[in-house]
């Protein structure tokens, strides 16, 4: 695990309870600059809750996060933009709210980054799911934060749209942005993430590279032909 001084994002012992249910039990993770970290786990594992706490949308009952909410970019699972505003108007609105020095320049930069310059004057409601998600991510970047949190960014997108989103995210990481995202798509996690965090029942069971997860499974006597099989075997071995 990277140390706090090297890491762009560090969460330590984060716990969250909803009534009698423990959603997170002392979860810790870290992510370095330019690193892509995938949070994976079965349904109800606490992935979205963890990301919400990292983003400052929910408060942890215990533990700490080294970044304040405004210091991280946040991209929710559902595109958080106004359907009756154009692409440019959405970007301009959030650029102003983020107090960007030059909102128009920020809008132009994001339009170029998303490749949506020609759709700038189209209503967000008229965009495809993939393009809406690109605008959604671009809005998350308007604050120029060096850490970007994405909650299932490619859920409900077709393969072509997923590819376009990943081209975009990988480009950001290549420019030094730390990306932490949750996903159900294990192939995507194995393919794009530098490291994965396996959550189950609110507990972080593994943190390391996808390859390292396979090695753990093999050490425990399990066999697998791909990352998905390794993940399932890993959880089964721990009673999940």
């Amino acid at each position, binding site marked *: 695990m990277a140390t706090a001084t090297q890491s762009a994002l560090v969460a330590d012992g984060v716990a969250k309870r909803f009534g009698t249910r423990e959603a997170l039990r002392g979860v810790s993770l870290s992510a370095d600059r330019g690193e892509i970290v995938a949070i994976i786990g079965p349904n109800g594992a606490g992935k979205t809750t963890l990301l919400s706490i990292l983003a400052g*949308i929910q408060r942890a009952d215990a533990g700490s996060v080294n970044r304040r909410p405004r210091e991280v970019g946040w991209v929710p699972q559902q595109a958080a933009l106004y359907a009756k505003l154009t692409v440019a*108007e959405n970007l301009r609105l959030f650029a102003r709210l983020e107090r960007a020095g030059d909102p128009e320049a920020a809008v132009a930069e994001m339009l170029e980054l998303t490749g949506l310059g020609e759709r700038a004057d189209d209503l967000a409601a008229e965009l495809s799911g993939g393009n809406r998600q690109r605008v959604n991510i671009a809005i998350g970047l308007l604050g120029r934060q060096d850490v970007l949190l994405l909650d299932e960014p490619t859920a409900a997108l077709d393969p072509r749209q997923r590819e376009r989103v990943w081209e975009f995210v990988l480009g950001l990481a290549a420019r030094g942005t730390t990306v932490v995202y949750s996903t159900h798509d294990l192939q995507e996690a194995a393919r794009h993430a530098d490291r994965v965090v396996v959550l189950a029942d609110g507990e972080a069971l593994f943190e390391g590279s996808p390859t390292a997860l396979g090695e753990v499974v093999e050490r425990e006597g399990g066999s697998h032909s791909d990352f998905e099989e390794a993940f399932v075997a890993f959880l089964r071995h721990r009673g999940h």
Partner: protein
Amino acid sequence: MLKDLRILRRSPGLVALLILYPVVLSVLIGFALSAGPDKPKVAFVSLVQPGDDKLELGGETLDLSSYQGQLFDAIDRVPVDCDGKTALQCEQAAIDKVESGEAIAALVIPEDFTDRLGGLQTLALSGPPTIEVFYNADDPVKAAYVEDTLEARLRDANLALTARFTKVGLSYLNRVVDGGRIEVPLSDDIELLGLRRSEELVRRVRPHVAPAQRAELDEVIRFSRLGRENLDFSGPLLRSVSEPIRVEQVALDGGDTSLSSFAVALAVAVSLMFVTLLLAAGTLALEREENAFARLVRGLVSQTGLLVEKAGLAAVCSLVICLAMLAGLGLFVDLDWARLPLWVVALAVAALAFGALGVAVGAVTREVRAASLLCVMLSLPLAFLALVPSGSVAPAVYDAARVISAVFPFRPTLDALDAALNDSGGLVAPLLHLAALALAFGALARLALRRFA
């Protein structure tokens, strides 16, 4: 706020509804206030011959056609063609109009109407004239309305005629007291001596009568004096017979707002309530439906700031709409434009209270459709409750209605608007009430936002 205005501008259906609603409402209310209900269609036939509609009564000539004019103002007269027809045929023609549905009633003035009416002031025993009214009772509501209308007009006519006949009766009594000439039908006029002159004559004769008989003359003098004095009381008595009960109305509570002015305050209050509630609740719930709320409150906008913006936007929009509505209503109803600043204050404070309630509804429901539905379901009963008059329900129910009305902004809004528009009661108390409700609902909305994202 600019973003919300832009979204509103791109919702033409909603904007059209927000503009058209008060315009249509104000026009409808204006027409309702400036026009009474439809007059009943009545077939009217007067069988009185032209020239026979004048009556000498109490020394004055009474034109009976003027009473017809009053009646015609209250009804929609259906013409009946009586040319070349007998009185009976003419009456039947009027009845046919009723039976065919062309008229809801037929009113027939008999040929001897003037004669019989004139006979009442003489000793002729012909009896009072009778007006025949034929109803169509197929539609009970209309039948009741035509009955009420005709009865009211005939009551007015009877009252006026009673006053005339009282005057005639008093003139006869005056002749009994003071003496004078009385006309007797089919006979010569009678010259009455009168009680006063009788007493004077007896008093003059008394000294010339033997003392033993003077006591009998004193009895006559006493009778004449007492009779004259008692008959002096007959004037007020007869006048009271024509109108035994007079009504003097004193309003014990509330101002002297006319019905039309109160209707204006009510219409504006209802519009203000609907527009503000729906806008405030809808724009807040929209933030969640667009998934933007969580993104906004991550340090970009404070939750309280967001609530203030939504309530403020709704208040500004509804203020503008209600002022436009008042301008429209001003075409139909007299409004005191010098009180415009008070209107604006009342509307603004009331709009803020409704805005706070709206954001509370939006925060609790978290969906635009659910918020809109709850706003409508909340608004209508509140408006009805606030209008329950005292004495119309059991005291406990009335007290409960007052308590519930006091917890929501409609009743104080109505009071504030009534005070601002019509100078009816104080404005400060309802404004303070509304301000307190705005704070309370604002706090409730803030609490509800905890589980909004």
